[in-house]
Every structure is written in C-alpha cells, then in structure tokens.
C-alpha cells in the first residue's frame, strides 16, 4: 500500500506545474489547460484523503469540483472567442486595454 504522503507529493508537484504554466505562458488556451491541471491536483488530494480517512465526503466534493471545472472551461473558452473577435489576439499580455 502506497503511503498517503506519496499522493500528496504527486498532487503538490502537479499543482505547482499548473501554477508555473499559468504564470509563464502567453497563449490563453494553454493558460486554461494549466488551470485544469491545478484543479486535477486538488481532486487527487481529495480522493486520497477520502480513501485514507475512510470517508466519502471527499469523493462527493470531487464530483462538485468537476461540475465547476466544466462550467469554468465553458465560460473561459467563450471569453477567449469573444476577445479574439474583438482584439484579434489570443495572447494574454496583448489584451491590456484596461491598463490605459
């Protein structure tokens, strides 16, 4: 049986990879994919704790997180299409009209 710490370390590494992806990439689509990576790291943590603590609440919360992730992906991609139509770019550092 693998100890709980191994799952936590895996989730932490996955979360930090996603965070670096959000911070460094310029392409909006890759930023969205990195956010999905971070959400999946959280899911691994929830399921691992639910398994090792003999609880079922963690599994239910993963279900809700998947719902919110689906909604977030739909809204994010709609915003991406809308900004691409208005500005003609998909790079996050070129969408800076609010900066003045």
């Amino acid at each position, binding site marked *: 049986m693998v100890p709980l710490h191994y799952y936590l370390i895996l989730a932490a590494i996955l979360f930090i990879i996603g965070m670096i992806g959000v911070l460094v990439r310029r392409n909006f689509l890759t930023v969205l*994919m990195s956010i999905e990576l971070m959400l*999946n790291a959280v899911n691994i943590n929830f399921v691992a704790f639910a398994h090792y603590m003999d609880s079922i609440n963690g599994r239910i919360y993963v279900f809700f997180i998947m719902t919110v992730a689906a909604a977030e992906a739909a809204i994010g991609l709609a915003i991406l299409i809308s900004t691409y139509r208005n500005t003609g770019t998909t790079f996050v550092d070129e969408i800076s009209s609010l900066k003045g």
Partner: protein
Amino acid sequence: MLNLLFFYFAAVIVISALFVIIKRNAFHSAVALLVTLIHIAGIFVLLNAEFLAAVQILVYAGAILVMIIFVLMFLNVTQRYRMFNRQKFIAFLMGIILIGEVLYVITRSAIKGPKGDFTIAKILSEGNTQAIGRILYTDYLFPFEVASLILLVAMIGAIVLAKKEI
C-alpha cells in the same frame, strides 16, 4: 504491484503535465493534457474511486478536452511566437521555492484525524456508485441543486459571450 502501478501513473502524470506547459504548439499541449487526465483516472482507480474515474474520463477527457480542441480549431494561432511572458524567470524561481516548501511540510508532517465510517469493505459491499449516489441525494441535496444552477448559468453565459450580436 500496486506500488509499481502508482509509480507508473505518477511518472506519466508529471512528465505529460510538463509537456503541457513547455510545448509550443497548443494542439500538442492538448494531447499531453489528455494523457495526464487519463492517468489521473488511473490514480482514482487505485484509490477505490471507480465511479470518479469513469466521470473523470467522461467529463474531462471527453467534454472539456473536446471543447478545448474545438476552440483551438476555430482560432488561427500562429506557430511562430514568443512562448513565455517577461516574468518567466521569477515565476520559475517562485515555483521551485514553493515546491521546496510544500515538499518539506508534507514529508515532515504526520497526518492524523478521526476516521470516518465508510471503510473500503463497506463501500465495496454497497457498491461504489450506490454509496456516492445515496449520500449525494440525501446529505448533499442542496449543494447538488446549486451545482445544477451553476451549470445553467455557465450554459447561458457561454451562449451570451460567444454570440456575435444578441
């Protein structure tokens, strides 16, 4: 055997997640993301959450990834561009510092807590999907309704945002 499977899944998850953030072509990133999500479903199976593994493949690898690739085909993203932001060095540095801190805390902490009453034997005797469904429709009925409202808001919002003129 289970240890070997865990290390296989973990290695593939980390390597393909790295490919997601270092590939220049966004389509390659999407395929690497698909590999990551399917192996996370394998991790769920190792943790006795078979229903969540099926939902993971259906929702993430099925719906979300198809939506991302669909939008990717709409947009004409050029291949020759600067990949990273200007803050890339400080972001990598912060990431390395943060992962060091988190690994230090995780490896030095003993995780204790009161155990619940859903042991593996009980879940297996009742059935994984049945156990989740029973709790979802009794204790978590109100959050379930709120989740359906979130999906409705997301649907209307996506239509309103992506439509050319309303």
